[in-house]
């Protein structure tokens, strides 16, 4: 049922502009794979290249090891779910779902049977005769999925289909999508700019920026071991500490910043040398207010500026002596009544929870 999708050196250009540049990625059959990146990073272009609406300027799209060049979208084993869903407003729900069967000349009874099966799959039994505009946002979403599944595609492509929904519904649909994917067991390729969506649903994600792939990996891998400063700041939040490498000890490096020296983990593929301009990243939740018995190998002095209550977390915004901003989060359960705006405190973080990367221009500050 499911198929591998491989992009081999795919570039898409519009005039002199590279919407995607030398993208190499292999999506395994049955995988839930996400492309994550800010808007305009080229992820939609890649999806269109896989679905066949856009021929790559260079490189090849392979589905099940078969070269797809020259094969139109209606002849590929893929189905696309559009950002705005593109349900046909003048047809009923069943007609929408069975449209792909109708164009293949499937008989009316067969079509109805299949539509009913799919309606059951998406938990909309008996609503096939409704018009599209009578459905709620989440129901439309599911109809769009059913319509795409009716083709029995080997790969389902989803172009930010949840972006139009409100927060609650979006969270529910994440689980539902994941469940549907498990049930039908086909390859899902999902496009989003929302890292929460990508992290919760995907088996693996690919982070993209300005048409290029920054990193591919499992969710926790990408989150914990970002390969580039862009990934470090785009996926989740991160505090950058700028400085120079002053010492290397095994897989750790020492960085000297305006505010002191810190120790952080080096990435195997991003080895550093002494004297390199680099950045250490530490996440807000990895910064702790030391209590008795804690022993962090990095210490950092900050001035608290403001405070924000998020429910499960309390966020503090502070400044280092050099003026650099820093954010840290504390679980709600921990008492922080002693910390007030303007007070100076010392924070600690573990070198194993911090990564150091060579300096490159940051896309997101």
């Amino acid at each position, binding site marked *: 049922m499911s198929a591998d999708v491989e992009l081999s050196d795919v570039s898409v250009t*519009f005039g002199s502009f590279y919407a995607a540049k030398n993208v190499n990625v292999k999506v395994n059959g049955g995988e839930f794979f996400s492309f994550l990146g800010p808007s305009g990073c080229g992820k939609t272009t890649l999806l269109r290249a896989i679905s*066949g*609406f*856009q*021929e790559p300027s260079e490189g090849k799209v392979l589905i099940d090891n078969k070269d797809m060049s*020259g094969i*139109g*979208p209606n002849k590929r084993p893929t189905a696309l779910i559009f950002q705005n869903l593109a349900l046909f407003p003048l047809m009923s729900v069943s007609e929408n779902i069975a449209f792909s069967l109708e164009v293949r000349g499937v008989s009316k009874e067969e079509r109805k049977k299949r539509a009913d099966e799919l309606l059951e799959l998406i938990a909309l039994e008996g609503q096939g005769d409704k018009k599209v505009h009578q459905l709620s946002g989440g129901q439309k979403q599911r109809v769009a999925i059913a319509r795409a599944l009716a083709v029995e595609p080997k790969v389902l492509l989803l172009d930010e289909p949840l972006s139009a929904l409100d927060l609650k519904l979006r969270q529910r649909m994440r689980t539902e999508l994941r469940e549907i994917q498990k049930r039908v067991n086909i390859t899902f390729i999902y496009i989003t700019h929302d890292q929460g969506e990508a992290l919760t649903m995907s088996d693996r994600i690919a982070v993209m920026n300005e048409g290029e792939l920054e990193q591919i990996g499992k969710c926790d891998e990408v989150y914990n071991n970002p390969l580039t400063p862009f990934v470090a700041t785009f996926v989740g939040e991160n505090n950058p500490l700028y400085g120079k490498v002053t010492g290397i000890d095994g897989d750790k490096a020492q960085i000297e910043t305006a505010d002191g020296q810190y120790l952080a983990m080096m990435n195997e593929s991003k080895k550093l040398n002494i004297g390199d301009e680099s950045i250490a990243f530490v996440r807000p939740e990895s910064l702790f207010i030391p209590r008795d018995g804690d022993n962090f190998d990095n210490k950092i002095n900050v001035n608290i500026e403001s405070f924000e209550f998020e429910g499960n977390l309390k966020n503090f915004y502070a400044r280092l002596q050099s003026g650099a901003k820093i954010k840290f989060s504390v679980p709600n359960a921990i008492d922080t009544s002693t910390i007030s705006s303007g007070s100076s405190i010392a924070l600690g973080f573990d070198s194993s929870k911090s990564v150091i990367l060579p300096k490159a221009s940051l896309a997101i500050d």
Partner: protein
Amino acid sequence: MRPSYFINFMMGIYIFIFFAYLFGPLIIMSITAFNSAEFPSITPWECFSFRWFNEGKIAYDGQHLAGLLTDWRLHDGIISSLIIGAGVVTLSVPIGMAAAIVLTQVRSQLRDIFYSISIMPVLFPGVIIGISTVVLWDRLAGLGGEGFISDIGRNGIFLTILAQTCFISTYCFLIFVARLQRFDQTQEEAALDLGASQTQVFFKILVPYLSPAIASAAVIAFLFSFENYNTTVFSILSDQTLTTVIASKVRLGISPALSALALTIIALTIIAAATYEVLRRRAEKRYKDTQEKFVKEKAADNRINKNYKIGFKVPRGIVTILILVVFTIYGATQILKNDLYGQSCIDAADTEKKSKFYDQLNALDAIELSEEELSGGELGGNQDYGDIFGDPSLFQDFGGFD
């Protein structure tokens, strides 16, 4: 998407044919305006001349074919068309505006009926509006005896203004409705809240907001009035407007003076369109960096071919201009080489035709004589002449005798 080059190619050819169908007749007509021959044609080409724009010509058979400058009927027609146009604008714009504003105020149950009545006149065939106005006013004039009512009831220009206002008000109405749909009612409320009277609100808020619509409604009303034939031909009675003059000329026979008239109108239209486009672009420039860009991107997104290199492309302006230049040069050299321009050429052609004409006249005399003998002096009608010359338009009135 992979384009099918064959389909794109066929589409290109189709678009070309379609636009050739739209423009071809107009272009050919424009060219015939410069041929000095009495019958509008390209082949045979007699002489290149501007006579049809100027004085016309005295034909070899003594008929006067009026040119644009010397055709008094045309001039009278244009003057009454202008008067009627002005009258229609002054009536239909206020009517359309009133109806559109009131449409926003009537209850929702009544709105459909009100709207239906308002747009009904454009669904009536134009001839019917003309006829109904005439029959009604003829009756009113008859009832009124001698006097004012009787005078205006039999005045073609007055009746035409009324008849045209009947349906042109609908076009104005539709323009105002479109503009009012985007009107923010809270503006009015804010003005009232600040102490303005209802009348002040109308003149200070609503009318300024509607002013672009007033301008376009006025232009549209004038153009529709100026171009109208179906209604006017009934309601104008014994007067003449530009369109009825054209119609009567066409019916009597086709003359290159009409080509010249059409070309003049085409030229004015293109100048107006170009001016409008320039003004529009200037206005657009002000927004360009903000809104316009966004809108254009949206428009581009909503098209199949995002990659513009694919697919049929209409030749850029430069190609069109090049082709035009080549044709113009070719035509001009042909005309110059064969000495087909200027007074001498026209004189030569006339002399030749005149001599031909006299030959034919002589021949005709001979025939008529013999006919006279045979049928006891009865002369054949005009039709016989037409048959003999093989050109029925020869004896027909092109522009009236001066």
